[in-house]
């Protein structure tokens, strides 16, 4: 039996907490998930919303916001530009982590993270541009995982983030930074994330 949870660093503490059935909301404010992102800009806040967006479920501390600036730079929680790297982005500054737990020890292979339209995993999220970064694998640049206008996104080779593989253990964690913007005005709900791996 293996379980996968998406976790945000939030709440009292803050601490890593299961996002559960909540929605990860990219918004225009670090503290208010109802504030929209300015047109063509990237996320200035990331939150756990009960719906679309519904009430904020982050608690005392909101989820970390990592904003795409350029292919190799980021802004963490409104801070100045920094090169995106393992050194500059601490685990506890990542947008989320993915936790794989198994009753018995397992290793992984063919592990991927992707965005899609919420219905068909191989179809990109609608009117979204999104970048992802995995901390802990010495990466130094964002990876584009969605660009609807460029027909990029979904669970397709070359259009998803190829995550580092794990050796045998009962708990595995992948730490990710995520940044997104809309390609047009208005709320974007045909936008989900997916994670898949093979355990053995």
């Amino acid at each position, binding site marked *: 039996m*293996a379980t*996968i*949870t*998406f976790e945000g660093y939030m709440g009292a503490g803050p601490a890593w907490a299961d*996002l559960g*059935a*909540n*929605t*990860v*909301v*990219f*918004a*225009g404010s670090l503290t208010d*998930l*109802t*504030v*929209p*992102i*300015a*047109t063509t800009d990237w*996320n200035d806040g990331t939150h756990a*919303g009960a719906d*679309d*967006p519904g009430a904020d479920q982050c608690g005392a501390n909101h989820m970390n916001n990592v904003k795409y600036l350029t292919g190799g730079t980021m802004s963490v929680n409104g801070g100045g530009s920094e090169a995106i790297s393992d050194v500059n982005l601490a685990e506890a500054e990542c947008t989320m982590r*993915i936790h*794989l737990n198994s009753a018995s020890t397992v*290793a992984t*292979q063919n592990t991927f993270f992707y*965005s899609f339209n*919420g219905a068909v995993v191989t179809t990109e*999220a609608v009117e*979204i541009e999104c970048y992802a970064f995995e901390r802990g694998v010495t990466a130094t640049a964002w990876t584009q995982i969605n660009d609807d206008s460029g027909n990029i996104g979904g669970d397709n080779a070359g259009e998803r983030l190829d995550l580092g593989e794990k050796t045998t253990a009962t708990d595995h964690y992948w730490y990710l930074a995520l940044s*997104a*913007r*809309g390609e*047009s*005005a*208005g*709320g*974007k*709900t045909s*936008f*989900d*994330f*997916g*994670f*898949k*791996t*093979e*355990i*053995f």
Partner: protein
Amino acid sequence: MNVEMKSYCWDRLLRGVVRNRIMSDAQRQDLADFILSQNPSAELEEAVGHFLTGELTEDACLTHYQRVDTAAFRASLAPPPDETRAVDARLKALLEMA
């Protein structure tokens, strides 16, 4: 990748299982192609050439291959996990834009 050949090489060199088979020309060529596809180098090409003409035995050829690049050899021949299980999960997202 030639799965049968991969399994054969794994058993023979890394597990010490000797099957003492008599190789046909086709099998000989198959093994030669496999070795060169895994580690194409001038040194190995020469060894494989001798193997194909019968001047080098299969064991000598395989041992030579293993000696040239043991790490790559082990990686290339590592058997797939006995059992794999696909698992996945999804998370709803929303982007709010003015």
